[in-house]
């Protein structure tokens, strides 16, 4: 039986070789590990899963996101990396499909009808990614909360635990970040730039 890390390697190689489904298959692996960990973190069951999970995410992260070695400074960092990885996979996937379809960048993205209750369309995903990057430049913490919540799928409590923040702080960060992003994405008047 192959280890998760080996799976990741295989999937990433397949992805580079043009297997469009490879990333799709990587998602559940990262997601499962992230959530198992998030749950364990809350229940105090961190030990025992660390090695395996670290190996998996490390492998994927190095290969997909950042060519250099990463070393985890702490658990919060690790969670952030997992969520970043989820984000990167989803955005890459969206970008790949987008370029296949149109052979270029989206010109017009309609947000009026997208309220995030259903999966984002590819163009929406890319625009959100860009907006989030802008938010991150000015206000890293709310941006990180969005990454963990939206891309990582963590609950408020899990996010608070992962980032070592109070619950109220996470609730407020989440609230203002969403207002700002929504405003950005709609391209409303009086946009607040980073």
């Amino acid at each position, binding site marked *: 039986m192959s280890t998760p890390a080996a799976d990741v390697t295989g999937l990433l190689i397949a992805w580079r070789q043009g297997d469009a489904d490879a990333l799709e298959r990587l*998602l*559940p692996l990262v*997601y*499962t590990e992230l959530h198992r960990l998030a*749950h364990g973190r*809350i*229940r105090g069951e961190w030990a025992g899963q660390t090695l395996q999970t670290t190996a998996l995410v490390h492998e994927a992260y190095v290969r997909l996101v950042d060519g250099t070695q990463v070393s985890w400074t702490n658990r919060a960092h690790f969670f952030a990396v997992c969520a970043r990885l*989820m*984000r990167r996979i*989803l955005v890459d996937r969206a970008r790949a499909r987008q370029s296949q379809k149109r052979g270029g960048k989206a010109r017009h993205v309609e947000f*009026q*009808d*997208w*309220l*995030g*209750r*259903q*999966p*984002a369309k590819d163009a929406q*995903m890319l625009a959100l990614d860009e907006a989030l990057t802008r*938010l991150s*430049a*000015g*206000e890293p913490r*709310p941006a990180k909360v*969005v990454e963990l*919540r*939206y*891309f*990582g*799928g963590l*609950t*408020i*409590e*899990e996010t608070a635990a992962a980032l070592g923040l109070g*619950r109220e702080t996470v*609730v*407020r*960060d*989440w*609230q*203002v*970040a*969403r*207002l*700002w*992003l*929504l*405003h950005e994405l*709609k391209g*409303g*008047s*009086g*946009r*607040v*730039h*980073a």
Partner: protein
Amino acid sequence: MSERLHHVLQVCRQALERPAAERAAYLDGACAGEEALRRAVDALLAEQSSAAGFLEAPAWTPERSRLPAGTRLGPYEIQSFIGAGGMGEVYKGRDTRLGRIVAIKVLPPDLAADPDRRRRFEQEARAVSALNHPHICTLHDIGSADGTDYLVMEYVDGQPLADRLTKGPIPLPQALEYATQIADALAKAHREGIVHRDVKPGNVMLTKSGVKLLDFGLAKLRAPAAASGVLSSLPTRESSITAQGAIVGTLAYMAPEQLEGKEADPRSDIFSFGALLYEMLTGKRAFEGESHASVIAAILEHEPAAVSSLQPVTPPALDRLVRRCLAKAPDDRPDTAHDVADDVRWLCEASGAGAGTALHPVRRRGLRVTLVLAGLAFAAAIGAGVTSLLRPASIARPSVDVRPADELNTDGGPSATPGGSRTAFTWTPDGQALVFVGRRGGVQQLYVRRLDAVEARPLPNTENAQLPAVSPDGQWVAFWAGGAIKKVPFGGGLAVDLALGIGDPAPVLGNPPFGLVWDALGLFFARRSVGLGRDNGRIWTIPPEGKPAGVTKVSEADLAHTLPSLLPGGRVLLYTVNKRVLTWGDECVVAQPLPTGEPKLLLTDATDARYVSKTGHLVFLRRGTLWAVPFDPEQLALLGQPVPILEGVAQALREGNTNLITGAGQFAVSATGTLAWVPQPVVPYPERNLVTVDRRGRVTALSGPARSYGPALRLSPDGRRLAVTVRDLTEVGLWLYDLTRGTLTRLNRDGESEWPVWAPDGQDLMFTWLKDGRWSLAAQSVDQPAAPRALVRGLSWLSSWHPDRRTLAGVTPNGWDVQIATVEHEKVTGVQPLWQTPEVERWPVFSPDGHWLAYASNKSKRNEVYVQAYPGPGEARQVSLDGGESPAWHRNGREMFFLSLRDATARRRMMAVDFAPGPPLWVGTPHVLFEFDSRSLGLSCTPLRCYDVAPDGQHFYGTTVTPTPPPVVTHINLITNWFEELKAKAPVKR
């Protein structure tokens, strides 16, 4: 630039932390002179209206994120996936505490994110959970585990009406029966102020015992606060709405006003009901369309074709009723669902005469049922399901009054429960007379009312009697009065003591009996108190010649055994096992072969079971509804699923004096098939307001909703929060009231949490916790989400921390001595009585410097407040002069407060007395601060103090309650030939 973003978000964040009404004022100040900043913040805040739900669903979730079997959500265990609906995924699960099968709805994660929405959700859910009706799917619980929110509902085994309707119209009699039940359910909910908002075939389940209406009020919860009507939001929000998966199916049943975004009211449900009835009768939707727009247009503008044009034999009155329900203007519809239910019933029972119809006698389950229906065509269609609607004419529902008594009442005074907190009547063995507890001119005694007599006759020598039980030969009546079980001859005569020392009243909590039954083998009674004495909580027997002896053994997780009854022959005892003191949910009914057999669990969430030998049913109560289940008395086995038989049977929540839950029902089944009962829904705990009272007695309500607060509250060490408890019918939860923000937050709602005391560091609350039948002293972290931790088993009454942070004063489990608990590293290392005296000492409290212990004792024959050096040595100094209880210290240690004793008009005084800690100790003369009515202002409790003092000693915290007039019962309702109804509703398979 990034500084600007930071600034904008910061101001926005601050604004959001304030109530909406204060935001503008805040922004005026924060953005003074910075117009661009104000514009930017306003622009962000303006997004709120459309931000609900934005990004709430994660970017990606695995296809199969369903909870696997075995997953635990709090006390619930997932068994299997049932389906996904508009509000989330539904699972079949098991309540591990009760062994009960439940349906669990796992809610989408967006709910937890918005505190406002969450609060509204919990409020609504609480209201819905109070709905108790045979045709409403009961909401048992709402909970949250590991960030997953869920609803726990009654598990309903049946077929959705929506599925049934795919096969075409429903035969008229059956459609009318369903319609009556749905209308009854709506009427009940509307009376409680709850509108369903989403009546549709998908929310109606067809079960063996009739329909069940699901998802009451949940439609309201689904929509975020900002969401308005469907119509106004369709152009821009259609995708979001369809994504919720709910509106599409519902649209066709929505009232015009709902589509226009107006608030739904009971008449909106009546419209939806009309659409439902139309479809049941015709098999066609009342309003159809290819798209949302065309369905909406149909509802707003079109009249559906008359039912009679599709089903020619429809009675004209039914046609008219459907049309009235479907009126576009709410004012043109029937006023109440109750009226609708009556109309449908009338249609069923009496219509058709004018339409020249035939009478069709139908034999069904051995019952002669007369059906009066319009039209021959439907006669052939009459099949299963016509039971409750079409009663044989011989079932009568008369009542007998209790004259010459003024009222039926067992409680020696006004009682919150109709008839009192114990069953107030019993049948004679021949079923010809009722023996009941009546009160006349303040005198309580037994009366005998023969059914053929004009009025009841008082039974002499039965003053203050409760718990009547008639001997099997009909010659004697036993009862409980004045601390003894006695008997008198049925025809009148002197009372004979059978057992003495049973439930002696004050000064201490006695072990009062909670049920009495007389059989060939003798008398059986249950006794119970709050304490944990050896003899407490067992069922006892008084043999014909002999002394009382315990017959049941109370296991560690049984709190008490109550409400005994016997199977025929007296060989098997039935009783209720109580695991709670104040609430319902854990109690169960067991059967125990006598004299020494093993108890066998028969029913959970059940109370006061009695066996009806003529029909072979166990009947029992479940929160005010009488249920029945076929039962084999030999094998002690249930022969089917329990079904609800009669709603709104008076059932006592609490006993008047001891405040213990009793669960006793006001019903009795005669050997000849007559049910005697008192109608009344369960009376919940009264709502109270949190208040402050200043030193002059002026009462000011704190902001926030009225709740069923428990009496005890405690101020946090920093003076900013109050720890309070909130009681509902199934839980006593621990809550925090934030004095600066006026908000109420729940800490736990698991079991019963009472008597909170803050840890000195303000991080933890200690409290008396009752869960799964076991008492413990528990701790609960205040600011971290965590479950309560049981520190030590056993009943503890905690009162006061010593400043050494390791010594806790309290009251012993029996409630009459001061005890000291030692706490080290979160562990209770010792609990022992401080003194053991023949007197009663209560309300202990340490002085702020820890050198003194104040308490009240009855050593002078009435309660007085004393103060004594701690740990001693030293004499006790009497503080109060004219009686006193519930002392509390000013935080400066130089003043003490206490309450005077309750006078004849229930008034008390708040007293203050000055101290100079010395040495030597100097105690001033007590003076009156204010006088108050202890029935409406809750400052006094036993055996611990339940008010608290503000840090500056200038005011007090307590609760107020508006006294409501107690119900007065003057009639006992009868249902004759009740066995037939029982057999029809809960058929016994042979």
